[in-house]
């Protein structure tokens, strides 16, 4: 992880869950997705990303299984569970109100 753009606590969980909303993905695809949708603004350390994925599995938010990827190699796929969707909904709601509050507080500054 690079310190200058390190993520706020809990943000990575939301990003990882969000990455899986459109269907099961392997770890590398999740990393690329985050990189692309944030236009490279958020650099997520790969180690941290995998730890977040495995923790999500431990919490029951995603289920992991081995399968064949698009280039026919074995990869571990993560799929959002019902509990994961629920967690994503709660956390994104909380994050949005936090972001709105922060935006209001910082309004006017240049």
């Amino acid at each position, binding site marked *: 992880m690079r310190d200058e753009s390190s993520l706020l606590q809990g943000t990575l969980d939301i990003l990882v869950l969000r990455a899986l909303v459109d269907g099961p993905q392997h*770890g590398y695809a999740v990393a690329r997705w985050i990189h692309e949708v944030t236009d490279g603004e958020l650099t997520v*350390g*790969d*180690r941290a990303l*995998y*730890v977040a994925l495995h923790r999500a599995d*431990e919490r029951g938010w995603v289920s992991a299984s081995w399968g064949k990827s698009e280039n026919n*190699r074995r*990869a*571990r796929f993560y799929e959002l569970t019902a509990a994961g969707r629920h967690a994503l909904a709660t956390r994104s709601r909380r994050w949005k109100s936090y972001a709105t509050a922060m935006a209001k507080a910082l309004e006017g500054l240049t």
Partner: protein
Amino acid sequence: MKAFRGRRPGDVPREIARAVENEIQEHLRRRTEDLVAEGLSEAEARRRAISEFGDLDAARCELGAIDARIAARGAWSHVGKSVRRAGGARFTALLDDALLAGRRLHTRPGSALLVTVMLAMAIGLTAAMFTISDVLIFRPVPFHDPDELVVVEMPAVEGSSAGVNLPLTVVEAWRDSGSFEAVGGAFPVAGILEGGAEPVRRGAWIVTPGLVAMLGVRPLLGRTFVEGEGRAGSEETVVLSERVWRAEFSSDPSILGRVVEISGQPMRVVGVMPAEFRFPNAFTDLWVPLDAAAPRDRHRELLGPLVYARLPATIPRDDVLERARLVALDADDWADGRRVTTRPLVRGLDEYSTRAMVAVSAGVVLVFLVLCFNSANLLLGRLASRRREFATASALGASRGRLLRQALLEHAALGIGASVLGTGLGAGLLAWAQVSLPATVERFTLNATLNAVDLDGRAVLATSLTGLVATVFAGVLPAWLATSPQAAMWLRTLVDRTDTESRSARLFARALLVAQIAFAVTLLVGAGVLLRSFVNLMQRDLGLDAENVIVVDVSLPDHVETFQDRSGNVALVRNLVEELGNLAGVSAAALSVGSPPWAKFWWSGEFFGQDGLDAISFDRISDYRVTQTFFDVYGIPIIEGRAFRAGDGDESVILGERLARILWTDGTAVGSRLRSESMTQSYQVIGVAREIRTRESTNPADDSLEMYRFYKPDGFTLSVFGATISLRCSAGCPSAAALRQRIHAVNPRLLVGDVERVSAAYAELLGQPRAAATLATSFAVIALLTFASGLFSALHYAVGRRLPELGIRAALGASAATLGRTVLREGLSVALAGLACGGLAAWWLSSWLAAITYEAPSPDAITWIAVIGMVSAATLAGVWAPARRAMRADPLRLLRDQ
């Protein structure tokens, strides 16, 4: 990959670590490919991919740990959910602790399994052995007021076994005079039960109606006999055992009132006895009533019954017996000069077996304690790591009570699992012992008891509790040490500051291991000697040719008229021998009462032989009654004199070689007369036959002595006791069905017993030595396994303690092989010391064993090589895992842990 192996956390199963590694490598491969596509060189791309990933080793550890937790939880999470739903919040904390305990056991299945198996083995074995000793030695017979129940005998000679069977007149007189509180008699009879596909032979006894009631046992179904039942002219009735009811009638609840055929006689079933009822012996399945007051003629002619009595509790025993003697004398002249004696219902074990039993039980208890100690030791082997774990949890805020509870739950689960498994194992062992111990040697086996042989609840409870205490103690100790300040101080007195084991503790552990291996070596050598003895017995010259001889018992139902018709009976016997001798494949046929290895009758008492020599007293002379062809059928050579001839009279006798040599030391037996006060007539010795030997005895001096009396073709009559037909086959022996058919063609009412091979009967006699050898070998193997597991747990513990030292040595350049050798040397030194001590003990033991083995071989080279080989294998098995652990000691990780 190599670096990774050193860093793999101890708790992560190999397959999880492999999956994590695959996932990481797949990520790095994809990233490298993308970077190559962007224009980087392959090497540069790979380097960048790795650097972007971050600390690879740390990732492996973190991901592995998370996945191990997920895997362990898998099996437990659904249990948790359902219990939580049912229990409410109050139980949540307890439940969480239980689930944590489950997960902990799950992550270390190897040691949990080893502890459970060791304890289960200890519990099962000890409970089974306790049950066996208890039912055979300590527990009284399972009848009402057992102390007053006796067998009444009237021996003529002090200490003689003659006079066991009393005339019915005496029993009747005792009953009428009220000499005893209650008295009854029982005879064994041939019980051939018909109804199924094949007639089956079952143990049957004719009993006086009050006998079962005297024992105070209630039937499972229906009733026992009532007074007057069994009288001539009354309906024939029978009581069945639960075993027969279950096996032959599928536990039919409407069995009462049904008519079954027993030995050709229709009888109405009036009752079923409970499964645990064993009387007069363990093989009895059918009881038929006999009315002592009005006995039918046939019983007066036959042997008298075994007499059972209940002594009046209020009158001195000697007075009761003296009065009974006077009553008997008044009733029958037979009682003249005889005393009335009593003995317990069960003869029980002889002195030797009792001693052997106690010795074996003591050994089992020793093995039990050692196994408990080893289990605790194995658990304590993790003491250091567990203490750290608990200390961390305590520092993070876990309460002391909670930590102790977690440790308690985890180890109680182990203990309970072991006791469940052990109970099953014990019950299995008993069931196995009951079917596999030889039934022929009644004195030594489980059939010698009238008690039901079920696993003893007290023994299971006591052993389970001990096992539980051992595991819980070993499990809770680390938690207590980690959370108690006083304990930490106390610990310092045990363990010195370098965190290695104290010298005295190590010495004690070593001494215990040496004792274990010495015990195992002693048992192994003993088992080796018993095995050799067994082989010697198997190869023993029997003095006859038992191969290709088959025997079948035939008898007449006692209500058949031929029984009284002497000439008809004689013709029947003659026809039978001729018919069967003419069967295809049969070269010779003989008829006898008793056939080797079992005589049906024995003589005891004083015998006179050579003139001028004193009478010699014998306990047991086998008395065979044989036709002319008997010696040809069995291939027994006549070494002096001649065999029987058609013209010989009833008084002709042929003696076994040993008996002849004892009675006529000058070798002049042939032509002399054999006299005894036990026999009503004297006999003319016409020949001496070669000694026949059994395989029952381990001592040649214990072999029975034989005499063969002649039954002339016109003098042989069949009775309810029947006779044995022996056939020597030249080619293949006729089938049982063919024999049965031919016998029934001679007379359809003849009862035909099982067709048996004589060689099989001899093989059965090997049952006891075989059981002894098997038992000793099993014990030796268990002792060896105990040693291996003890060695493993001790070394595991030692290596665990010395890991920091081993790590430093590895860091200073010691090779893995050197480290492994250190552990191996420790194991070997213990094994060698044990081998030396065990060798000495075995040498002492083998001289003791010589007394009970046949041509006892002292432990020879083969035995020693086998023992040393087995000990080496067990040592290597115990050393292997700890040595590997030492070889893999990773200095970096160990130093970091410090």
